[in-house]
């Protein structure tokens, strides 16, 4: 009995002293106290130095929390329990949050730095007049390929994917909108097309792609491509930049027919308790030098046109990630097609997947 009491007492003492250490570390970092701001962002999606700088400039301490998928973030915000002051959903999640009244409208008079954002990326279909959101990063869907293994295949058109040379050597991301959209684009239709005959055509075309497809995979596509398990893959540009960081033999291209344009956006959820600080933070992130530093750290494309000018030329001049206007004009944002149409897209995509061996 005595030894039991001793053991449990020492466990409690150890954990309380550890708690003390944590509290001390927290306060030395300024994480506790009233003047805070809770930011909910994707993992590794900000330069930590910027958080320190924001704290120094405004005296507001940022509590930084991360999530790994839009769905996870949505659930946490919907349920409440924690007050997130700033969150960073992708555009389709943003549309959903708007529908479910989970967002506070932004006060544009408190966001003077909005003028630095490229007007191409403002006032888009998922959030007219940027009532609820400002863009954080953007990107495209395109093709990562290994020039050595795909010699003679021209990826300037989506049709390059159908080249018989790529037999059993192509990876696709597991997304109905992405893959159906790519097929629609290759037929010169909009990737928001709701015409059932067009969609059927897209499916027929996809089924012809089947012999080339090695696998339809999730996040592991990055690792597989970087390890040269396949000669080419259809991925998001953010993933592409990471893959190319790991393996510089690879290249990325957005085909000429057009493609998807995606956004991650800063919003203020309804549960926010520090609305003023949230505006300050969003405004701070739109400051050109901040946006530039962040883009350099994260590696995604910044929508901040004045920030882009501050980037080293080899980044801002990289047409793969900052495509020229001939291509950006053809890029499309996913519209919210409604539940039924989305189900139809999923159904067709599933048919395609079943078609694969």
């Amino acid at each position, binding site marked *: *009995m005595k*030894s*039991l009491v001793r*053991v*449990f007492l020492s*466990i*409690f003492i*150890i*954990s309380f002293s*550890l*708690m003390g*250490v*944590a509290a001390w*570390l*927290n306060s*030395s*970092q300024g*994480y506790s106290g009233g003047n805070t701001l*809770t930011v909910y962002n*994707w*993992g*590794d*999606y900000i330069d930590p130095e910027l958080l320190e700088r924001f704290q120094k400039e405004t005296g507001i301490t940022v*509590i*930084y*929390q*991360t*999530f*790994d998928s839009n769905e*996870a973030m949505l659930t*946490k915000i919907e*349920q*409440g*329990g*924690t*007050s997130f002051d700033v969150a960073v959903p992708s555009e389709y999640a943003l549309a959903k949050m708007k529908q479910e009244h989970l967002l506070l409208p932004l006060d544009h008079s408190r966001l003077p730095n909005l003028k630095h954002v490229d007007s191409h990326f403002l006032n888009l279909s998922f959030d007219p007049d940027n009532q609820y959101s400002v863009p954080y990063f953007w990107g495209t869907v395109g093709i990562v390929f290994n020039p050595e293994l795909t010699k003679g295949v021209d990826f300037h058109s989506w049709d390059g994917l159908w080249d018989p040379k790529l037999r059993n050597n192509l990876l696709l991301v597991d997304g109905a909108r992405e893959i159906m959209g790519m097929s629609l684009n290759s037929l010169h239709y909009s990737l928001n097309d709701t015409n059932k005959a067009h969609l059927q055509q897209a499916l027929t075309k996809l089924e012809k792609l089947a012999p080339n497809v090695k696998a339809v995979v999730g*996040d592991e596509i*990055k*690792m597989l491509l*970087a*390890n040269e398990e396949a000669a080419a893959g259809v991925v998001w540009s953010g993933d592409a930049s*990471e893959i190319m960081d*790991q393996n510089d033999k690879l290249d990325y291209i957005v085909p000429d027919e057009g493609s998807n344009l995606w956004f991650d956006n800063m919003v203020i959820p309804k549960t926010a308790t520090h609305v003023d600080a949230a505006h300050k933070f969003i405004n701070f992130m739109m400051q050109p030098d901040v946006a530039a530093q962040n883009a350099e750290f994260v590696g995604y494309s910044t929508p901040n046109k004045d920030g882009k000018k501050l980037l080293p030329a080899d980044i801002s001049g990289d047409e793969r990630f900052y495509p020229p206007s001939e291509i950006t004009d053809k890029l499309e944002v996913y519209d919210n097609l409604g539940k039924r149409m989305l189900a139809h897209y999923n159904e067709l995509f599933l048919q395609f997947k079943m078609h694969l061996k």
Partner: protein
Amino acid sequence: MANKNRFGNMYLVIVFLVLYAPILYLMYYSFNSGGTMHKFEGFTLQYYKEVFADTRLIIIVINTLVIALLSSALATIIGIMGALAIHQMQNRRVKNTLLSLNNVLIVNPDVIIGASFLILFTMAGIKLGFYSVLLSHIAFSVPIAVIMILPRLQEMSPSLVDAARDLGASRLDVLTKVILPFIKPGIYAGFFMALTYSLDDFAVTFFVTGSGYSTLSVEIYSRARQGVSLSINALSTLIFLFTVLLVVGYYFIMRKANRNGKKEPAAEMGVPR
């Protein structure tokens, strides 16, 4: 016979290789200056420096340890009481029902426990953070503690208690001087089981964290979206070495205790029966 033995040994070696290879692989690359996991370029301690410089990560590690220690200690204490209560139950039917309810909680998927806790806490208006994580960890550890302690109780001969009572021991004496010492191995086993469950729990914790409070499993998972950085390898290596140290320490303490007391060694090692 010797042949048979060799086959057995080989099998054992293969099993251990499979178990340890990923960990060794991970440790090896934590020293890679190349920054990725596919080509080893040179030796560096840079990622270890990064770990120690990252205060936020260290706070998260401490959080994880505090939650694990506190929740498993509290859960063990609650579990002792629960096991005693179930053991003393006279009605067979009620006793079996309680036991099955306890077992259902163990096999219940973590995701469901996590989601229901999230709903409960938000409905009750409890702020998500340290306490919500602690409470849910205690909750899923209690059944584990109970199931580790009960077998020891059932093993105990009832005449032991009777004899103590006959010799004039009070109820409290019986509990503290007879029962608890007898079930001590079960208690330790329950505690360590709960500790490991709590340390690596992701599903439940993910649902109930909030307000900047995070544990290691949740943090590593959300960082993995950008590819796991080698500093995570470095941290994992440190934690692994720390666990090895704990196990070795535990082994020596037990050996010393055995030499002094000559108690049942198997039970003392915390092997559940």
